[in-house]
């Protein structure tokens, strides 16, 4: 049980901590700010806020370097293997899921990371979003066949 050892759990805590701090510092916990990025209709009037792009691009670059490093290694430091999704088909589930998530994100301005980090501040009605997100996630699992879920779920 590698995943109950102290270095493994410390790594999880360090990663979660950096993630939560990053969401706060970048203001991505502010639903209005995220919606001002998604509101591309404001581009002509100069009211568009491109900040979100300045968050995600450096994050991708750093993770890209980490992935390059991992390609030269057999295993991560504290587990026996990298849990990388093997399934690579672009299917209806992927696209349909992305459509539903896109509607939800555009309605609320928060995605799962900010929604959870906001527990620190418990804004009004946050619990409704969290509870329904959990229910939705469980409902969604009923549409995913078990073998498929297992292959995919390993990594995410």
């Amino acid at each position, binding site marked *: 049980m590698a995943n109950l050892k102290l270095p493994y759990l410390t*790594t999880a805590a360090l990663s979660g901590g950096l993630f939560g701090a990053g969401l706060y510092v970048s203001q991505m916990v502010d639903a209005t700010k995220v919606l001002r990025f998604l509101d591309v209709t404001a581009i002509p009037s100069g009211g568009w806020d491109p900040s979100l792009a300045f968050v995600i691009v450096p994050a991708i670059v750093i993770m890209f370097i980490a992935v390059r490093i991992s390609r030269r290694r057999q295993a991560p430091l*504290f587990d026996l293997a990298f849990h990388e999704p093997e399934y690579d088909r672009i299917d209806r589930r992927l696209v349909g899921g992305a459509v539903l998530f896109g509607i939800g994100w555009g309605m609320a301005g928060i995605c799962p990371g900010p929604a959870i*980090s906001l527990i620190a501040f418990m804004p009004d009605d946050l619990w409704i979003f969290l509870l329904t997100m959990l229910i939705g996630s469980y409902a969604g699992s009923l549409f995913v066949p078990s073998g498929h879920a297992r292959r995919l779920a390993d990594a995410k």
Partner: protein
Amino acid sequence: MESFTPLTAALGGCLIGLASAVLWLGNGRIAGISGIFGQLLPPAQTVVWRLVFLLAMVAAAFLAARLLPSIGMGGDVPATLVPAPTGWGIPTPVWLAIAGLLTGIGTKIGNGCTSGHGVCGLARLSRRSMVAVAVFFAVAMLTVAVTGIV
């Protein structure tokens, strides 16, 4: 444009990238928040590290608000989420419940959100993630345009 904050955005983005790199190189796990959250449900097998990760996330946001008063949100704690757009006749709690359900279902069957597909998937050059990111960004932008929420 007065709300545009490129420096703190990039700094926060670096922290998020570092978080993803640490989890990947340390534990070989993808820092996809919808997955870490969604797999707390049965038949969950590896609950402990997921709980540790999520608790650390909440604690760090809490501490950042108090220790970094001059950066990011500047100690400003979000008191509310965004109210439902007027004109649709839907009360905000119901609006958020619909958004939460769609986010939960969508990230489960699409297998990822802004972090798992957006940061980690694109960094892995995953074709699935490229498609997912293009679709959910486009749909979210369309949703904002249609609802007029901001």
